[in-house]
Structures are given as C-alpha cells and as structure tokens.
C-alpha cells in the first residue's frame, strides 16, 4: 500500500495567475462603460429630498444641471448663508442668469438634441420654494420646459 504514497511531502502547486489580467480587464471594462465623469464640484450643501415615485433619467447627455442650496461653509464668507444657485462651477448672482446659462448650453448641443434638453434641478431639501420658483420662471422664459426634480428613493417608509 505504501507504494502508492511514496512522494509523501507533496508541494502545493502555485495558483496560476494567468487569468488574473483577464478578470481585472473585465472589471475595468465594466467600470469604464458605467462611469460618467463628475463634471462639477458642488459648492453648496446638498441633501436631496426623498420621494417614492421616481423615474430614471434616461439620457444623461441631454441633461443639464442646476444646483440650488446653501453654500458650503468655506464659501459662506463670500456668498452668504442664503440659498444660492450654482451653474457649472460658479454661483449665479441672480435667477435670471439661468436663462443665459441654458441658452449657452443649448447652443453647444447637437442640433437634433436641442429640443430634447432636460434640465435637472438638484435642489437641497430645505431650500425655500421662492428661489426654485424664480428658476422655474427663468426656465420657462428660456423654453427649457422639460425639467426633472432630482430626488432620492425614500427609505423606510411606514
């Protein structure tokens, strides 16, 4: 019997790492395709409101973003503690600037996509509606009528 176990002190074969690059590449491609680069850094405090009946924003390339909220602490010295509008990286001085911003963004878009533009409003949940209404009026004037109230899924309802 012992015959068969002659080579008792067997070494464990090294695990082949040949497939490691493939696995990593797979992961890499997954992240590459799902990634969308962050375009702006938020200068305002943002806590999105909660809602349940959400729909997904289908085409992100058609979406332009407007952020509204109270400036972050480091910007409060220069911008105050009232809710402000952030367009790209800068604060808007007044709500009417939204109109110009939208028309600039629209001009930069593809001709076919121009009337499909969606304006996504990312508004802090404690913001008063006054400033939001001003923005909405400005959007109406600029004929940017497809809007999107961005919100997060409501957790533990009931």
């Amino acid at each position, binding site marked *: 019997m012992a015959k068969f176990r002659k080579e008792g002190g067997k070494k464990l074969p090294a695990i082949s790492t040949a497939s490691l*690059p493939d696995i990593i590449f797979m992961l890499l491609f997954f992240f590459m395709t799902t990634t969308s680069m*962050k375009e702006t850094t938020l200068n305002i405090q943002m806590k999105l409101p909660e809602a349940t009946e959400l729909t997904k924003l289908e085409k992100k390339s058609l979406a332009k973003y407007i952020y509204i909220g109270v400036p972050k602490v480091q910007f409060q010295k220069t911008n105050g503690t009232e809710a402000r509008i952030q367009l790209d990286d800068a604060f808007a001085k007044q709500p009417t600037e939204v109109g110009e911003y939208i028309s600039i963004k629209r001009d930069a878009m593809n001709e076919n996509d121009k009337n499909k533009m*969606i304006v996504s409003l990312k508004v802090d949940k*404690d913001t008063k*509606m006054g400033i939001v209404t001003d923005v909405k009026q400005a959007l109406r004037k600029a004929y940017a009528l*497809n809007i*999107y109230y*961005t919100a997060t899924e409501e957790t533990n309802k009931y």
Partner: protein
Amino acid sequence: MKKRQIQEINASSMADISFLLLIFFLVTTSMATDKGLSRTLPPPATNEEKKEDVEVNQRNIMLILVNSNDRLMVNGEMMDVNKLKDKAKEFIANPRNDENLPMKEKVNIPLLGGDCMVTTKHVISLQNDRGTSYQAYLKVQNELVAAYNELRDAKARDRFGRAFADLTKDEQDAVKDFYPQKISEAEPKNYGQVTGGAQ
C-alpha cells in the same frame, strides 16, 4: 536554416497596469444614477392665455395650496399629506360620477374596448408659497404622481392582467389616455407675506 524562436512578451505586468486603470475608474465613478420626478413646464404665459385660464369649470379643478409652514389646503380644506393621494385618486377617477367631481367625456380608446368615460378636463392645480420648503413641495408632487400611478396600475391589471410597467408601449399609452396626467404648476404667488395681489 536556423529556426529562431519568437520571444514571448512578458505579460506579468499586464495585471498591474489594468489594476491601475481599474482603480482610476473606481475612484472617478459616480454610480448613483439620477432619479427624480419628471415634469413639463408650461410655455411662458402671454396676455391672451391668462384670460382663458378662468374658463375652467369649478368642478374640474382640484386646488392644492401649500403654505410657508408646509401645511396643505385642498379645495379650501386643510389636509394631511398622507391623505392627499386618496383624495387625488377619487378626484381623477370620479368613480361614482359625483356632481362635484370632474366631468367625464367619451373618449375612444381602441385598446381599452372603444368608448371610455374619461375625466378629460380635470386639472390639479398646485400652488405654493415662496416660503414652502422644497421637501414639502416635492412630497406633494410625489403623492400626486403616486395617485396617477396607482390608478393606471389598477386599470392595467383590470384590463390586461399585468402591472402597468409590464405593458407594451401602446397599451401603456392607452392607459395613459384613460388617466391623463394633468398637474398644473401655477404662477407663483405670495400667500400671507405680501398683502393683496393674490387672488
């Protein structure tokens, strides 16, 4: 002739390189998909349109006011947000053909079996104060959308035996025709802040 062997490229660093790329994308990724409530704003108001506004019959309007304390008033009655959905559903569907609820009209929807009685003219008018918080406003919007969604889902199950989301595009459109979504966001007004002005 001497046969030269082609040297294999050393691929052991491939994993490292792709790891590096992977980590880069991991860091820059923001996976959070945007979700929210989609809305279409009315085009800018002209003077002629303002006059036509008044013509809507009283029974077809559900007026929702949200004040600066985030309190609701629906057609002159105080109401809790949680009850808004049922109220809205009753208003949109008008199941008992109530005199005070929206008028129904015949609409031909082939997929739903020909003529249907639809409250075509109903309008849910949402008005808010400048001091209303965004969360409260969105909560109201959300309840209204939920009311429509539940009605449509019920109709879809009733008619097609499937959830609204599982219907085909045509069937969905048919159900949408049966319960058209009409939420109007009125011109902004000041309630309780500035005297006068508000109707």
